[in-house]
């Protein structure tokens, strides 16, 4: 065990820091859940890609730098330290990207990855259906083979950023007689295909952060099938591993939140004095963010050494989502009566974006598989308890 960075890794960090310093927009971009904000975030992706920073751990031919996951984590640390914008293509680069590396054909990789890195194709995730949320194996949207195409009918829902995204990766039922996990297939569908209809859904804050997607006889060429026909569940579980276990929520995000939280504590001494538990809660958040970073480095080392992400990704998901919520709840308590004011309110003072962050953190225990489901998985698959 050696927990120091190598000389190369340090040099890499310095290079990333320098580029970010020169390029990160001075002003926060508008919310990516608005049309204008989405466009601004897409532009930022283009810029990142021009600098070769879109996805450093990808092979050079797909727009990456061919470095390993440790460098990716270093890049993320610098990214959050620089206060750079959120990644509008997170479903693409963090979820579908690594899945394509694992299951995609060379043609598929060449076709999708570079455009993904460049922000030309922004991706949405189409797994949940009205009656298949936690019970994802209950998916009913069908894709039946007709020559060299599939014909898709049905509906997906809660698809983040699908209102303005270009493509969506989905799981459909390709075998009409199949049940549960069998007979599902993983497919890539352009959102402007004929027969696709997107209906925006307003979230808690009134902004259209996700959407329903309807498929009415949508024709999808067979070369947009990822993995084998009927093997979609396996592909999806690989994606879910990245979602819960590694890429979607890199530790730097929470370390940045923890740092902001410490500053908030420092700037609100009256609140801290009135409620002595606040200091304790802040340091707990800070410690958890640290522990999460260490755990992620450990996972990355394992993967670099040829290992893979298994059911322990469920523990990971519980940890990051609950840590994030706890830190934001602490921030709200520190802000006291100002916490309910929107940042535009004159009386709000310097409340920053904590309210937004708090409301989004509340979704953490729900998306990427609810924490109840993650606890079931952890108890049954890791601890070996009898199945319920």
């Amino acid at each position: 065990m050696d927990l120091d960075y190598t000389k190369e890794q340090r040099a890499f960090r310095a290079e990333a820091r320098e580029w970010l310093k020169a390029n990160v927009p001075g002003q926060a971009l508008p919310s990516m859940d608005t049309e204008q904000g989405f466009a601004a975030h897409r532009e930022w992706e283009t810029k990142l890609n021009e600098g070769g920073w879109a996805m450093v751990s990808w092979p050079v031919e797909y727009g990456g730098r061919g470095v390993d996951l440790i460098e990716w984590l270093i890049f993320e640390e610098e990214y959050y330290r620089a206060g750079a914008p959120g990644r509008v293509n997170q479903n693409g680069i963090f979820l579908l990207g690594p899945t394509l590396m694992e299951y995609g054909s060379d043609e598929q990789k060449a076709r999708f990855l570079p455009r993904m890195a460049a922000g030309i194709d922004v991706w949405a995730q189409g797994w949940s259906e009205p009656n298949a949320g936690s019970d994802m194996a209950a998916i009913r949207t069908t894709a039946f083979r007709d020559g060299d195409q599939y014909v898709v009918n049905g509906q997906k829902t809660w698809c983040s950023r699908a209102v303005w995204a270009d493509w969506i990766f989905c799981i459909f039922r390709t075998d009409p007689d199949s049940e549960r996990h069998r007979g599902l297939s993983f497919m890539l569908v352009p959102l402007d295909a004929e027969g696709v209809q997107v209906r925006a859904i307003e979230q808690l804050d009134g902004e259209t952060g996700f959407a329903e997607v309807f498929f009415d006889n949508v024709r999808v060429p067979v070369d947009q099938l990822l993995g084998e026909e009927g093997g979609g569940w396996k592909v999806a579980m690989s994606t879910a591993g990245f979602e819960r276990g590694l890429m979607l929520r890199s530790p730097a995000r929470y370390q940045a939140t923890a740092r902001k939280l410490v500053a908030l504590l420092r700037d609100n001494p009256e609140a801290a004095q009135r409620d002595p538990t606040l200091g304790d809660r802040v340091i707990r958040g800070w410690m958890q963010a640290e522990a999460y970073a260490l755990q992620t480095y450990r996972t990355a080392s394992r993967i670099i050494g040829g290992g893979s992400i298994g059911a322990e990704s469920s523990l990971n998901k519980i940890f990051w989502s609950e840590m994030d919520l706890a830190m934001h709840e602490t921030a709200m308590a520190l802000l006291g009566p100002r916490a309910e004011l929107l940042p535009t309110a004159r009386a709000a003072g310097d409340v920053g974006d904590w309210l937004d962050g708090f409301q989004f953190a509340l979704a953490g225990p729900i998306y990427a598989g609810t924490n109840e489901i993650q606890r079931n998985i952890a108890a049954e698959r890791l601890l070996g308890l009898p199945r319920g």
Partner: protein
Amino acid sequence: MDFHFNEEQLMFRDSVRALLERDCTADVLRELWAGESGRSDGLWSGLAELGLTGLLLAEEHGGLGMAEVDLVLALEESGRACLPEPLVETVLAAAPLLETLAAGGGTPASVADKWLPLVAAGEARLAIEHPANPCVADAHVAELLLLLADDGSLHAVARAQVELTRQPCNDAARRLFTVDWKPGDDSLLAKAAGATRLLDAAFDRAAFGCAAQQLGIGQKLIDLAVDYAGQREQFGRAIGSFQAVKHHLATAQVAVEFARPVVYRAACSLATGHTDAGLHVSQAKAMADEAALLAARTSLQVHGGIGYTWEVDLHAWMKRAWALEMTWGGSAWHRGRLADAVLADIDNKPREGQLQLQGVN
């Protein structure tokens, strides 16, 4: 000792509930959010007709001369309905303050004589500034505002004489303002020293009012989730049949259920002028806040994705629970106040003839 509500108190609750179920539905709430004022004169006068707005006021001011114990269940109902009206500000904080001041005669008496009958009749709402709150709630619909000058003196100012700036906030129903105004000699109600005492009492009543509303909000959040969990199926079963879901909801119910007697005790203590009324209010506010916050988080979690939408009504109650937790003293402030008192009192002998509670009695 008798912890029951009497027949009339229960009947009053039922009539308030019936009115709110009819006139303060989720559709009405949404219509009101979209409106500039966000308030409904019809709803307010309906509540007044039931006696709610004058309940605490003396008969000479058109009121019913009743007390907080008679009001607490109606307040709970207002939380359950997510009522957007300034019940706490007008009925609990401002109007009784005016009435107390009026006893001393002079300007306050004439202000009270003019305005309190209008409050009782549902023809006027009041707004009140307090150092605990950065903004003044519902100042835009208040005919009269009780405001604090820089020197700490308390003034009564008509709405026409102030300039309001709306402070946008998370709960679509809430209307918060900063107020620009100038104190005059004719607006003075009380100098700083006297004002502080009055404002402290108003603060306790208002914090109690929020606590009672939080009980209703918390229960509603649980009820919404219980309903949903009974209908929504995953894995071929109602999600409410999963132990994880059951335990979440039962845990939230424990919190609400154990906040309830604490809030009711605060009502009694305010009504009887108990020496520890303020501490009882603080315990009530802290526990009801915590229960409502837990209910909010639990209800959202049980709803899953659909709970995260604007279309589903859940967020109205969640956002109200979050907002009230920080209003009229946050739960942490109230715990701190109680902690100070409990620590100071720990070695004192219990007094005779009172409900004996550790440390504070």
